[in-house]
């Protein structure tokens, strides 16, 4: 098949797509006589298998007659199949430019939304703290409309802000549990309190939440987890978790001498940031990408990873690649320790990382490719037959996790559900 044919085919598909939207029958654009059949709008439902069998049936006979046509046909099928194959991931919230603010959105929220959308603020803890701090500002700037009360109206006002944030990037589990707590506080606040006092009380509650559930919790986790690092250990970690970073730094400060393998993966390469911090603290480090994991796993004493959230069956929802690391470690009897605050516990159960996920920013796919051609010509975007899939998270089954370090102690993943839920519900 020639290049011209391929280009033609693409153009045709593009045209078909465009016309398909307006529901008008597609005019055969630039159709060569032999290629007329595949130029039919690629209706994704029934014709595909029929055409496939037809093509197979005519294959020996038509070998001489229309080679070009047949090739074009199979390519078209291919494109249809492939694009359909990827379309099943369409529920992963795609990279969206932030929708312009609808309703009464606070400027700080708009700013935060942009930060979220561009991954300037990422990480479950960082996002939760950022959200809560901005909410404090929102609450302070809020005035109760006449004929309404703060307890009743503030929640609806916040909902607008929240939906704006969600439109920028799906809500983190941590944010969800913090917001649930905040709304509970708002609806529970005293109706007779002067407005300013009520607002101050809420801000105080937010500060307490950040302190108790995140900052103090992290300190306790660090204390517990550093006890699991011994002299001469080789620690492996994947990507970057703020808790794991602090655990490693603290253990080093306490005088434990160990080395760290930082495993990282495209496209976000978050491990580089962790690496720079660890190297600055003069911890001996090795940096490798995920495919090299198999060759070093036998040398590892313990794997430490962070988590985005943890489900009630003990499955850990964390940066894509964590499951691979954990399973590989399990296979080699290396203990896998997850550092996770209790406010990251989510009550749902998820069985795979397909039902709910996000897409990571694409990054530069050619960053380390030997560039024999100018980079400008190496664009992969905007090609109809190509969709780049970078799921942001994956799900590690509880069977490949040895222990979860939380602020209430080290627990096996199966026992997550037995931590009293009151812990997350104290009013």
């Amino acid at each position, binding site marked *: 098949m020639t290049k011209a044919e391929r280009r033609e085919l693409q153009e045709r598909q593009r045209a078909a797509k465009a016309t398909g939207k307006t529901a008008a029958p597609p005019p055969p654009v630039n159709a060569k006589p032999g290629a007329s059949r595949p130029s039919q709008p690629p209706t994704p439902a029934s014709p595909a298998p029929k055409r496939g069998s037809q093509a197979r049936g005519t294959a020996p006979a038509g070998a001489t007659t229309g080679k070009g046509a047949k090739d074009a046909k199979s390519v078209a099928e291919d494109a249809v199949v492939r694009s359909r194959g990827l379309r099943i991931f369409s529920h992963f919230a795609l990279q969206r430019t932030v929708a312009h603010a609808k309703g009464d959105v606070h400027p700080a929220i708009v700013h935060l939304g942009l930060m979220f959308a561009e991954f300037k603020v990422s990480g479950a803890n960082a996002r939760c703290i950022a959200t809560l701090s901005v909410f404090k500002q929102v609450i302070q700037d809020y005035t109760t409309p006449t004929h309404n009360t703060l307890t009743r109206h503030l929640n609806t006002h916040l909902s607008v802000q929240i939906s704006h944030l969600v439109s920028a990037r799906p809500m983190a589990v941590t944010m969800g549990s913090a917001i649930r707590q905040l709304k509970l506080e708002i609806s529970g606040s005293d109706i007779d309190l002067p407005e300013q006092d009520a607002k101050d009380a809420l801000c105080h509650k937010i500060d307490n939440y950040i302190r108790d559930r995140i900052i103090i919790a992290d300190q306790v986790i660090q204390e517990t987890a550093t006890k699991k690092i011994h002299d001469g250990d080789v620690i492996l970690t994947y990507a970057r978790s703020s808790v794991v970073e602090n655990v490693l730094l603290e253990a080093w400060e306490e005088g434990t001498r160990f080395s760290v393998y930082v495993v990282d993966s495209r496209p976000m390469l978050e491990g580089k940031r962790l690496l720079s911090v660890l190297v600055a603290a003069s911890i001996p480090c090795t940096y490798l990408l995920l495919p090299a994991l198999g060759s070093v796993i036998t040398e590892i004493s313990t794997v430490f990873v962070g988590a985005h959230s943890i489900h009630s069956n003990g499955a850990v929802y964390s940066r894509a690649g964590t499951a691979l690391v954990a399973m590989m470690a399990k296979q080699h009897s290396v203990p896998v320790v997850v550092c996770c605050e209790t406010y990251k516990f989510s009550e749902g159960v998820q069985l795979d990382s397909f039902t709910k996920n996000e897409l990571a920013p694409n990054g530069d796919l050619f960053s380390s490719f030997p560039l024999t051609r100018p980079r400008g010509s190496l664009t992969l975007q905007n090609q109809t037959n190509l969709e780049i899939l970078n799921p942001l998270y994956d799900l590690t089954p509880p069977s490949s996790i*040895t222990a979860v370090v939380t602020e*209430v*102690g080290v627990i*096996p993943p199966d*026992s997550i559900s*037995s931590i*009293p839920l009151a812990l997350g519900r104290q009013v």
Partner: protein
Amino acid sequence: MAVSTSDIASPAQPGAFTTSSSSSRSILTHSIPEDEEAFSGFDIYDSYRRILCDPQISAPLAAILSLTELVEQSDAGTMFELVKALNDGAEALKKRVHNPIGLNAGSELFIAFVTLFPHESASFSELRTELVRQGQTYATEALQFRPKIADLALDFIKDDSVILTHSYSRVVMQALLHAHQRKRISVYVTEARPRGLGIKTYESLTAAGIPCTVVLDSAVAYVMDQVDFVLVGSEAVVESGGLINAVGSNQMAIIAKAENKPFYALAESYKFHRLFPLSQYDLPTHTPGILSFTQPPLRPAPELVARPSVSPETQPVLKSSISASSAMAGLLPPAPVQRTMTAEQISRNPDVDYTRPDLISLVFSDVGILTPEGVSQYLVGMFAG
């Protein structure tokens, strides 16, 4: 039982128990350094050792009782001071005991109990006497745990069972003796080197009329096929649902798993310990000396041996002695060569090992028959609340 409880329930006056201990257990008190006693007037290690002399009392219970005595003796005026004194006492005990795991479980339980104890008493001294009373009541009740566990285990022991057990455990003994009254059982017990406690089990069981055979620790895999299930005691049951027990339990569990035989652990609930070992080497008993390699003694340099001129007179002597011994070997039965480990070699070996939860079928305890996950949930529910 009655005798033992009266023995534990320490006399009201502090003076009384020191005199009684010095008279009845003079050997033990003799071994306690004098300066320790001078330091606080009450030595927790002393009382721990004394309580442990009772054959019915295990390490966690002894820790609870000695901490109870500490509460009795302490002059703490506030809860904070008392808890601090308890923590210090537990720490002191831990430092002086070779293998502190069981003891830690007991002190942890008691300190948690004291901290969570509702303050209803009018005065602090009243609260303290109440705590002492509670501690002693618990210890008395705790002695009933073993018969209860034995009763629970009975349902799992079928008539004509062949049971494999490891070393010596009071709760396993009780379970076996209890089962013997109702059912025909026979028992394989490991020798459990280096302390050889398996022999103790063997003696007690044969005395009770239970058919029993001692097997080598290295013969566990050989005997496993003949066995219906494995029954072991425990030093502590940890938060992962795993087990800490006399060394050799882990390999027994692995072999049992490989042969698909149930592996049952018996543990009183005071042995449940908030500890999460990630591996064998993550235990508090692990000392750097364990498993270290000895530097092999420097051999004579090869050239010294090769050149006969260096020591011509020693070589014929050596040769003759060798030939003499080989000639003797042919004629006479060889003199029994003592191939045993030296104390130094033994010290490089661990006392206890950690059995992973996935190798354990069930844990029998006085709070019920639990799966390993159930143990961890029980512990999380008790301490993490």
